[in-house]
């Protein structure tokens, strides 16, 4: 057990560091928050730069143009890029980290050839159409129907919380293809071209006043059967395959940012009680960084440990504590949301909710790790 980086890892860090120092000053100025066309240009331009330098698809296999980097290298990549305040993955998120890996694992040769190179080069933006108004935590209860009609599925329903829905060219779409099967068994995974007739995308204004998410209404949208990924009615498994690509690095950028915010509070917190609370928060962030290192190590060995299922819950709580402390320290100085620390407090309210609420996380930990029985279902 040790925390030393190998010489190869140190060399990778140095090389990446040098590249970032040279490349970041060449970037155009960042777009404003609500200028979506400019955001797409900026984020995909960054993706193209990563691609040209050999840093695109860090976790992807070489056969699909990726770098096939070890989990430790992926950790270093995220740590260094975030520290250098390089652009975030932004609109490339769904394609690079979700749809792409799903296609690699389950897509047909045609689907892979058509999409993977374009995703890696920043030529194609994806969005996610999973959740529904009546299927949030109970995602498998989704109702959007897909009825076979020759070579097409005719899709009708409503999706919500579609990240980057207003700019995605393709959506990862979960539909119900067998209404009679048990809920996990009748789902299929489709590639949805977002320009098909019958699709209506409406942005949702979040409590930040911005629109990172959309509602997507589908009215008899004809999706080619050739766009199905995997076997019909096997979509739940296809969806979960993506999770096996996770290498314990999902929250590295978040962690680097959280530690930066906490360190920035240090010189301005004078009240002894608030200083002590900051000490507790810093200790929690130190511990979570150590847990990240453990999760990355175990993922690299192919034996994920309990920490993989625990990280999000623990991070949610530490980040909330940091956010609340920020508000206490800033006081009436927090009235102006242009202060990015305040904006971060607002943004991070989504962490205990998105991608499995803290309550769902606790159920998973209790049932999968502690072996406790499920609560009786309502029928």
């Amino acid at each position: 057990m040790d925390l030393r980086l190998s010489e190869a890892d140190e060399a990778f860090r140095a090389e990446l560091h040098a590249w970032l120092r040279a490349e970041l000053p060449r970037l155009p100025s960042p777009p404003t928050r609500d200028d979506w066309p400019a955001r797409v240009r900026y984020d995909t331009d960054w993706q193209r730069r990563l691609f040209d330098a050999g840093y695109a698809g860090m976790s992807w296999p070489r056969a699909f143009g990726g770098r096939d980097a070890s989990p430790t290298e992926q950790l270093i990549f995220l740590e260094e890029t975030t520290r250098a305040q390089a652009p975030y993955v932004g609109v490339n998120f769904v394609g690079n980290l979700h749809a792409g890996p799903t296609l690699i694992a389950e897509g047909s040769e045609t689907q892979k050839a058509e999409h993977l190179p374009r995703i890696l080069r920043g030529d194609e933006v994806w969005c996610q159409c999973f959740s529904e108004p009546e299927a949030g935590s109970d995602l498998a209860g989704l109702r959007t129907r897909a009825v076979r009609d020759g070579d097409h599925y005719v899709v009708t329903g409503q999706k919500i919380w579609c990240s980057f829905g207003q700019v995605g060219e393709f959506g990862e779409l979960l539909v119900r293809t067998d209404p009679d099967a048990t809920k996990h068994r009748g789902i299929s995974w489709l590639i949805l071209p977002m320009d098909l007739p019958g699709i209506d995308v409406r942005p949702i204004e979040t409590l930040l006043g911005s629109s990172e998410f959309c509602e997507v209404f589908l009215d008899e949208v004809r999706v080619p059967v050739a766009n199905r990924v995997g076997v019909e009615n096997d979509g739940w498994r296809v969806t979960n395959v993506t999770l096996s690509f996770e290498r314990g690095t999902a929250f590295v950028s978040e962690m680097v940012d959280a530690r930066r915010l906490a360190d920035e509070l240090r010189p301005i917190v004078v009240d002894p009680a608030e200083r002590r609370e900051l000490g507790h928060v810093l200790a929690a962030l130190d511990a979570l960084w150590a847990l990240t290192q453990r999760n990355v190590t175990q993922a690299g060995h192919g034996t994920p440990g309990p920490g993989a299922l625990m990280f999000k819950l623990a991070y949610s709580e530490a980040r909330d504590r940091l956010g609340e402390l920020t508000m206490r320290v800033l006081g009436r100085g927090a009235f102006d949301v242009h202060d990015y620390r305040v904006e971060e407090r607002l943004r991070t309210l989504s962490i205990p909710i998105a991608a499995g609420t803290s309550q769902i996380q606790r159920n998973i930990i209790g049932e999968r790790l502690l072996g406790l029985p499920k609560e009786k279902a309502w029928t």
Partner: protein
Amino acid sequence: MNFDLSDDQVALRDGVRRLCEGRFDLPRIRKGFDRSLFAELADAGLFSLRADGFGWPDVAIAFQELGRALVPGPLTWSHLAHGQVDGIVGGLERPAGDGPILVEHPDVIDHLAVLDDDGIIVVAREVLEPLTPLDWPLDPLTPVSRATVVPDGPRIGDADLAAAWRQSGALLTAAYQVGMAQACVDRAGAYALERHQFARPIGSFQAVKHLLADMAVRAEVARAAVDAAACTVEDPTVGDPARAVSSAKVMAGDAARLNAKGSLQVHGGMGFTWDVDVHLYLKRAWVLDTVFGTPDQHADAVVSA
């Protein structure tokens, strides 16, 4: 970077765990710390791990297991003093606030190591008199006596050694606390499966399940902090040992205390009884929070570093 237990470390962990399960079960633990317990631990090499070539991560792994079994005694002090002071060594930190001078395990120790900002002195047990035993100590497995004065004794280390002992002491105490925190998860989890109400195991209720999930997360996060601190003390090129140890003591202290309380809650009325072992974990957690720096003191150190 390989932040996981090596095969040797897994073997060490399992070996100490087997030793504890075989010889130091709770009926034995409840009899308290005595000379035979010390001798068995010493024979197993638990006080000489450093001298025998083990690294700090290994020692931390062993102490997690001792904490899991709630083995009583001045284990950390005896490990710190190994090779420098003979016999069973207890310890005292000075200044320790305005409170009374309390000597732990006064009837078993041979020497008392006294740590202050100038260094470490050693006082023989027999010159500690007069001692007044507390007849109702907070932790029944940590007997204490009140001393009126701490006599002088030979100096065995300077301020640097005292600082090193404080850091190692905090690390090993934190390791022990992580073991306690995990034991609380395991025991309360087992009880939640076994105890039925409303015709089903209480662990099936989300209200109970979520309490247990929080406990499991606390133990796992604190373990990562303790292991990272041990690796950093072992190899200071990977970080700041003082910061890492302070963070570990904060997280492990919270984990031991809050998990013991969580376990008490899961056990319901039984958790409030003397016969069920849960209270022993909570009382030890409170005791250990006061040694080698409280969580608040370490939090202050982290923010000021």
